[in-house]
């Protein structure tokens, strides 16, 4: 199949005209223009949020972090780290999990949602980890640990910083075939696809280490985090929870995408979509079970019974029961009854539980004894919302142009292509 389409492709000029530099630039300029209606309610609201966020960011850089954030000497990290980075990266865990399932375990069933997931992961790292720059006092010095202006190897953050950078590159390599299809570069695509397995293996390794590394960041805050949340196992807990955090986010995100980008989706994929969601629910359930038992071991091992009957203890129960036990029960019911709707609702609850857990470790149970508790300022929340809106805009821009939700008609996956499609392709190519 591949051979056939490749032969066909070689006979014609690129339909996008991107085989010359001038054509490439013209194509890019054309694609930059917005598609569809501009003044939709979503665009207006998100546009205003982004605009306001940009103003706030200017104020932040002109007058310092204290001008718009509630950060203090007691709370050096607020929601820009606790939510944007720590939670955002956990949600991006779906990308490495699905890559493992599709590329390593060779489960082709999940292929239709793989590109959207990897794209989401890539954008999450670009935007949410990128939001880290807003939080740095001197963001231009962020290159110091990369260029070797004194390597702090002993720092967990050194490891996390390098892994963020390398993993973002890995995800770019994983998503790059879609870019080559969009630009109609069949030769480049061939090489890009050849790199995928390597990028996936490297990417999963990096993810294992920096998902757990984000938890390891808090190991030295042993006398600041409430004992119900502090544990020497925090790296493992962060890693395991990133699996169900990622999967529940993929379930939620793909359910939304399926409505919004309905017209782009292959009808065959529509049919298999319920099956895919149920499969992912099973994966999330397994990870939730493992996580729950790890939490129980930690709890029993730390003999924390006395702490349960305190305000922080109740809060801990809210997180464990609401974010772990209830999802376990609901996912089980949904899987046994093939109830896709319930899978989607449970994924949403699970995601909330993960947000709660990450915020607890980084902000809420951090200095729980302090008299001057940290609450995010409205500006911190606004900027976070602006970052999320920007990410959605970027996601939408790419999905509306590149073959993310479905295959590019000219580049069908080898396994799925059947004669009819090749006929269509030949016809299309000869017609152009």
């Amino acid at each position: 199949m591949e051979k056939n389409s490749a032969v066909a492709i070689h006979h014609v000029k690129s339909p996008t005209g991107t085989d010359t530099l001038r054509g490439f630039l013209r194509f890019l300029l054309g694609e930059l223009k917005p598609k569809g209606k501009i003044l939709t309610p979503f665009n207006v609201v998100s546009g205003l949020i982004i605009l306001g966020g940009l103003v706030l960011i200017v104020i932040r850089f002109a007058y310092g972090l204290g001008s718009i954030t509630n950060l203090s000497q007691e709370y050096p990290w607020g929601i820009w780290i606790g939510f944007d980075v720590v939670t955002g990266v956990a949600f991006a865990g779906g990308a490495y999990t699905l890559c493992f399932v599709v590329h390593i375990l060779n489960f082709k069933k999940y292929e239709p949602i793989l590109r959207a997931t990897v794209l989401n992961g890539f954008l999450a790292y670009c935007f949410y980890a990128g939001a880290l720059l807003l939080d740095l006092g001197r963001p231009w010095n962020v290159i110091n640990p990369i260029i070797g202006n004194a390597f702090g190897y002993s720092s967990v953050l050194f490891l996390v910083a390098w892994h963020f950078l390398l993993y973002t590159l890995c995800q770019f390599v994983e998503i790059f075939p879609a870019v080559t299809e969009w630009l109609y570069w069949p030769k480049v695509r061939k090489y890009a696809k050849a790199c995928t397995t390597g990028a996936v293996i490297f990417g999963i390794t990096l993810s294992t280490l920096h998902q757990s590394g984000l938890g390891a960041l808090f190991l030295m805050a042993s006398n600041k985090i409430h004992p119900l949340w502090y544990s020497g196992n925090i790296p493992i807990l962060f890693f395991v929870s990133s699996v169900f955090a990622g999967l529940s986010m993929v379930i939620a995100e793909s359910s939304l995408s399926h409505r919004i980008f309905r017209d782009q989706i292959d009808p065959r994929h529509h049919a298999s979509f319920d099956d895919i969601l149920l499969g992912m629910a099973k994966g999330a359930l397994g990870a939730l079970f493992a996580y729950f038992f790890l939490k129980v071991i930690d709890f029993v091992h730390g003999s924390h019974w006395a702490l349960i009957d305190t305000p922080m203890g109740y809060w801990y129960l809210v997180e464990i029961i609401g974010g772990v036990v209830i999802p376990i029960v609901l996912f089980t019911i949904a899987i046994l009854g093939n109830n896709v709707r319930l899978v989607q609702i449970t994924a949403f609850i699970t995601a909330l539980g993960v947000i709660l857990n990450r915020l607890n470790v980084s902000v809420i149970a951090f200095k729980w004894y302090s008299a001057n508790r940290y609450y995010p300022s409205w500006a911190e929340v606004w900027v976070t919302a602006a970052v999320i809106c920007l990410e959605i805009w970027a996601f939408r821009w790419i999905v509306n142009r590149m073959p993310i939700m479905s295959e590019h008609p000219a580049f069908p996956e080898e396994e799925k292509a059947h004669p009819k499609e090749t006929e269509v392709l030949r016809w299309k190519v000869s017609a152009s």
Partner: protein
Amino acid sequence: MTISRRNFLKIAGAAGGALLAGGRKPAAAATAPPADPKGMEFYGMLIDTTKCIGCRSCEEACNEKNRLPKPEVSFSSETVFEKKRDTTPGAFTVLNRYPNPGDPDKPIFVRKMCMHCNQPACATACLVKALEKTPEGPVKYNKDRCMGCRYCMVSCPFDAPKYEYDSALPYLKKCVFCFDRVKNGEQPACVEACPEGASHFGKRRELIEIARQRIYRNPDKYYPHIYGEHEAGGTSMLFLSSVPFEKLDFRMDVGTTPYPEKTTGFLYAVPHIFILWPTFLYGLSYLTHSNDKETGHGEE
């Protein structure tokens, strides 16, 4: 800490050397290099709270030495003691007043500043080595490297580093133990200014000896504990007191394990995962894909 380690290494080296050489050349073991190439011992500061009269000379000297902004309330005023204070980006050391159960007329004054840990959490946390433990003892700050991530503040068990949140070009601010003086063996500004000898400068090992002697000779006057000898793995700042330290707001939950050791387990696992994970993943991928080729996909 260093000296004990050095002595330990000397003894271990002597024993090891004797074992290796079969007891024939004990002289070689005796010349075993010290743990620190410079043979340096950490300097420290012994703060005897029973001697402090709360004159705030140390605060004033620190302010002048580090060219910090002048405070709103003058250094001769005692009104500052009405509230408990913490160090700020503009004040690297502050005194706090506590009631004295033994003698209500003589309150206890406690200095607060960076503890200059033997194995500092902040320097371990710093990914650009902006914070560094020097062989002389001070934890110094290389401001040009700092990116302002504030991970040091999250990690420090004593909350010593403070940040300039109100500046567009912020730096981290904390006591650096007058590194420019201490590296030449000179005493820091606060010690020089102290009229009562409540803050005493010297080699850490000697200071611990002095502190022990004081406790031993005046068992009624001192609470038998040197805060900083073992706290967080040992600190350069050592405190003596007449009352238990928890009554003076000292953190009693820092433990005796050096803070960097809390992350070593994780960091040591990294190279293993980096080697084993890709090997395992590649093997798994090879096995799960071995059927693909046999069915001859992509060929006609």
